[in-house]
């Protein structure tokens, strides 16, 4: 996906950044721990964070699954031969792409919360699923459309029905472009999960916020938090890249 020209420098930058963030992630907590804790709390940031990481990664994973389900359904709807279905899907995708994710989260949690109690975690997963689903719909649609039309036609002329051709011939090929693109969306989600901190979910950022406020230690805490996110996204981007390469080769 990235043009080959810049690959070498990007790879170098990746190595430097991963190295630096590991170094600082290991080094910084010890300094933090030595700062006197006015709140009387003896837990260091590093001890508190595993919960946050679990929430962040857990929400990312669940949201990604939700978005894939929504996106697949909407994407197939875009390819439907019935105009009504296509208009309905367009309404959904255009509306969801027009509303900020943070507003959507507030809407689900507080506004819909007036009618039935929505747990924060559910609100987060629904919000991400519907928001990202609107983008993933396009990924599924484009993936199917990127498979040359002759593939389906060849399958038909060899005796397959339309559905057989879609599932046995077109989809396996479409996944080559769909899977890496979903990986990139999930990477974006990993960063966007920081928004759930406003719903009082104790993800990485929320824990950082609370720690920083309690200890009046903003600089080191936020540096640590930023590096942690950087480390996680760099790691995940490597995973996505590997998937991408495998799919491009295979």
């Amino acid at each position, binding site marked *: 996906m990235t043009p080959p020209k810049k690959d070498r420098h990007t790879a170098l930058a990746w190595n430097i950044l991963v190295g630096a963030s590991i170094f600082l992630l290991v080094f910084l907590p010890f300094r933090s721990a030595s700062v006197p804790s006015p709140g009387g709390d003896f837990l260091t940031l590093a001890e508190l964070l595993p919960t946050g990481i679990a929430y962040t990664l857990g929400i990312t994973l669940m949201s990604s699954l939700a978005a894939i389900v929504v996106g697949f359904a909407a994407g197939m709807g875009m390819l439907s031969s019935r105009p009504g279905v296509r208009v309905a899907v367009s309404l959904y995708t255009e509306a969801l792409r027009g509303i900020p994710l943070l507003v959507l989260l507030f809407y689900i949690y507080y506004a819909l919360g007036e009618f039935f109690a929505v747990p924060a975690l559910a609100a987060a997963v629904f919000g991400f699923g519907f928001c990202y689903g609107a983008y993933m719909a396009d990924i599924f649609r484009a993936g199917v459309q990127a498979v040359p039309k*002759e593939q389906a036609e*060849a399958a038909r*002329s*060899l005796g*397959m029905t339309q559905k057989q051709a879609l599932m046995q*011939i077109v989809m396996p*090929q479409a996944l080559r472009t769909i899977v890496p693109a979903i990986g990139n969306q999930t990477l974006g989600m990993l960063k966007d999960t920081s928004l759930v901190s406003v719903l009082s979910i104790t993800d990485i950022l929320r824990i950082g916020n609370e720690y920083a406020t309690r200890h009046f230690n903003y600089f080191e805490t936020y540096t640590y938090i930023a590096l942690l996110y950087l480390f996680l996204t760099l790691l995940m981007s490597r995973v996505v890249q590997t998937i991408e390469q495998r799919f491009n080769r295979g």
Partner: protein
Amino acid sequence: MLILDGIKKSFAEQTVLDGVSLRIREGERFVLLGPSGCGKTTLLRLIAGFDTPDNGKVTIANQDMSPVAVEKRPVGFIFQRHALFPHMNVYDNIAVGPRVIKTPENEIEPRIEELLGTLRLSAKRAAWPGQLSGGESQRVALARALINRPRILLLDEPLSAVDENLRQSLRDELRDIQKTFGITFLFVTHDREEALTLAHRIGILHRGKLLQAGTPQELFEKPASPFVVRFLGGYNRFEGTVVERIGAGAVVKTVEGNRLQVENASWFAVGDECDVYVRPHHIAIGGPSEFTHPPNIWIGQVKQCTPMASRITYKVQTLSGKVLNIESARTTLEAGLQEGRQVRLALDGRYAHVFPRENDD
């Protein structure tokens, strides 16, 4: 075998096929030849069932195809880029057809092995489509289509994506395979040479109409329209008026003022406006002392002389200002007549084709 009857098809108000009727015989290699956009691929797709005609009927082996779904039609389709399934190896690609109709694997295997043997593909049984050469890929596409035992094979410019220097040998291979299997071929191309090499009969399609169908020989000797002449090779066109009738022939006076005696013009009367077509190799070229006998001896000056491997092509300007394309065989070591030289030309009136004046393009 295949009968097309008054096929019409439009896309978005644009007429693509305008009443095409055609009969193709069992075991024939028929080539549909025409410029891009003439509707030839659309016609093929209608036969395969990928599209539906607005009007007219497709009959294969005495069966009307209108109610038959794509997957049930007794046709094989070979695509421009072969459309092998990239996620299956050669064996599985070929097995798709029999597997769809739930043929037991132990029946499929010997059939595929036999086909692989016949098509010199046995060593490629487990290869992936991406690892095949252009020729192998074509043979796999053929095997995949042939295993279903179709009544007719439809080929949509399968050689156009192939490298120039491979094309000749793939063409020969296609011929051989058709002979081996004795299957009816309907081949579509825009490449004149390809059509001439492959076809028993050629159909010339232009703007959705079948202008002429016949053997290559018939098309060259008795072209049904000016387009057929122009599309099948180099030509000189003379606009003129019939000034005299001689037997079945006539004398045409061209707008430049030359007199041209032609042999086959029985449909024309004195005074008729007409276009006369003469192929470059039907004009003989010689020094100022040659061709002393009329008719159709013109004088000119060589403007351009290009030696090719087996021929020399000239552009010669006649005294009247008209520039003629001339082609002569290159059988001697001579370089041909140099640029600037005065020459005499002899136009062979036997091979001139006369048509009523055309005014569009």
